[in-house]
C-alpha cells in the first residue's frame, strides 16, 4: 500500500476497482479492523477501526472474500445466532427472503451450493441491520444469473439507505452498482469519480470519442475534448463534399477504456 485517500459518503455505494493484487482487500481489511495500518489516518463511522470496538462492529456488516460458516448449522440457525449479537437486528425471515434463501433455510450449510453459501454470507452481514456494509468481491465465481441476483440485493440495500463499500475486479459490476469508483493499482488510487464521468478528469482529460465511416467505408475514430467544434468541422466538410457521415456517433469513453488506459499507463510508469 502506498497511499489511498478516499472518503465515502453516507448512503453511497462506493466501488474499489482494480486488478488482483492491487491492494483492494488490504484497504478493506484495514477499514474492517482486521489489519492495522502502518501509517495514515482511518475513520469508519467516526471511529478508528483498529481499536475494534464492539460499538463499531454493531454498526457494520462484512461480506468477506472467503468466509466460512459452521457446516452443521442451517441458515436459519446461523442467522438467529448472528442476530443475537446485535442490539437491533432485522427479522431472520425478512433477511432470508431478501437474499432468496427461504427454500434452503433449514438445510445444513454443508449441503448448500457455492452460490447459496454466498447468499448466506450476505444474509449474515445484513442481519444486524448495519449502517455500513463491506462487500469484498461479492460475486467472484458467480454465474451471470447469480450475479444479477446479487446486484439486485445490493440495489435494494442502497434503497434502504445503507452505505456500501464494494471491491470488484469486474468493470461491469462497478459500472452497474457504484455511485463512485476508485481505480486502484499497486496500492495507489489512479482515478476516482462516478463511473460515467471517470474519463472527464481521468488520465485522458475531458474526452469524447467521435466515430463515423468515411466515403471509402473506413471506420474513423477521433478523440476530442470539444465535440461541438469537431462535429461542426466534420459535418461542414462532409456537406461541402456532398457526402454523408455514415454511422456517426459521439460517445464517452467507457469505464473499461479508462481502466485499461490507466492501468497500462501505471505499468509504463513502473518500467520507466
Amino acid at each position, binding site marked *: 500500500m502506498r497511499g489511498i485517500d478516499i472518503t465515502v459518503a453516507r448512503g453511497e455505494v462506493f466501488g474499489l476497482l482494480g486488478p488482483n493484487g492491487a491492494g483492494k482487500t488490504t484497504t478493506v481489511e484495514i477499514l474492517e479492523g482486521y489489519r492495522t495500518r502502518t501509517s495514515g489516518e482511518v475513520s469508519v463511522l467516526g471511529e478508528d477501526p483498529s481499536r475494534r470496538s464492539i460499538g463499531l462492529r454493531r454498526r457494520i456488516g462484512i461480506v468477506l472474500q472467503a468466509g466460512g460458516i459452521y457446516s452443521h448449522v442451517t441458515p436459519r440457525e446461523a442467522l438467529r*445466532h448472528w442476530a443475537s*449479537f446485535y442490539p437491533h437486528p432485522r427479522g431472520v425471515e425478512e433477511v432470508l427472503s431478501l437474499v432468496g434463501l427461504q427454500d434452503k433455510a433449514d438445510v445444513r450449510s454443508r449441503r448448500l451450493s457455492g452460490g447459496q453459501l454466498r447468499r448466506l454470507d450476505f444474509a449474515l452481514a445484513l442481519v444486524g441491520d448495519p449502517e455500513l456494509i463491506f462487500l469484498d468481491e461479492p460475486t467472484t465465481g458467480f454465474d451471470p444469473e447469480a450475479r444479477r441476483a446479487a446486484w439486485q440485493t445490493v440495489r435494494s440495500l442502497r434503497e434502504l439507505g445503507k452505505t456500501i463499500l464494494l471491491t470488484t475486479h469486474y468493470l461491469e459490476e462497478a459500472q452497474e452498482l457504484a455511485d463512485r469508483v476508485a481505480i486502484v493499482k499497486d496500492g495507489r488510487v489512479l482515478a476516482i469519480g462516478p463511473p460515467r464521468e471517470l474519463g472527464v478528469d481521468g488520465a485522458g482529460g475531458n474526452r469524447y470519442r467521435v466515430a463515423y465511416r468515411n466515403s471509402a467505408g473506413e471506420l474513423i475514430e477521433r478523440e476530442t475534448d470539444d465535440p461541438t467544434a469537431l462535429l461542426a468541422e466534420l459535418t461542414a466538410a462532409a456537406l461541402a463534399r456532398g457526402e454523408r457521415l455514415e454511422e456517426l456517433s459521439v460517445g464517452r469513453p467507457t469505464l473499461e477504456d479508462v481502466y485499461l488506459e490507466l492501468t497500462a499507463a501505471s505499468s509504463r510508469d513502473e518500467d520507466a
Partner: protein
Amino acid sequence: MPDGLALTWRQYRLERRMFWRNPSAAFFNFVLPLVILAGAGAALSGNQHQLNRLVPMIAGMSVMSTTFTALAYNIVFLRERGVLKRIRGTPLPTVSYFGGVAANAVTNTALQIAIIVLAGKAFFGIGWPAHWEELIVFVLAGVVCLAALGVAFAHVIPNFESTAAYVNAVFLPVVAISFYAFDSSSAPGFVRTIAEALPLKPLIDGLSGAMVTGVGLSSQLDALAVIALWGAFGLYFAIRGFSWEGSRA
C-alpha cells in the same frame, strides 16, 4: 441489549448442537475412550488390580481427548475455513466466544468422567470416588491445562489436512508414555522422568487418588503443580499466538 454472559450461553448452546450433529467428532472425542474402556475392562475382568489402574488411565485420556484433541481439531478447522475470521468481524465479544467453546469442552469432559465413574462402580468393582472434591479439582485443572494446550497447539498446525498427523504425533506418544509410567513399576527411570514432567501422568495420578486409591489432594500437590505449570504455559501461548485467519484466506 445482548450482554456478554447471555452471548456466552448462546454460543455454548450452538456448540452443543453442533457437537452432536457431527458424528465423527462425537465418536473420536467421546465414544472412543469409552469403547477402549469397555474393551480393556472386559479383557481385564476379574483382575481388580489391573482394573484399578485402567479406569483412571482411561479417565485421564478422556480429558485429553475431549480438550486437547477436540480443540486443536476444531480451532484449525474453523480457522482454515474462515469461520473464525467471520466471527471476529461481528460484535460477539471474544470472551463470550471462547467462554462458549470452553464450556462445551467442560461439558464433554464432565459427561465422560461421569460415565467412567458410573462404569467403574457398575462394572469394574471400583466404588464411588473416595474424594469427590479431589476429582473435581483434578478434572478442572486438567481441562483448563489441556484445553489451553490444544488451542496453543492449533497455532503450530499449518492446515487442516495435516491436523490428524500433528495431533496424533503428540497425543499418542504422550498417552503411551504416561500409561507406561503409571502402569508399570518396572518402567525405566528416564521414561518415568519424562512422564512426570508431562501433564497427563500427574493428571492420572490425581484421578487415581480421587477415584481409586484414596490418596488425598494434600499428597498430590506436586502433580497439581505440574498441571498448573503446563496450564500457564498453554494459556500464554494460546492467547499470544492465537490466529483468527488461516493461511489460505
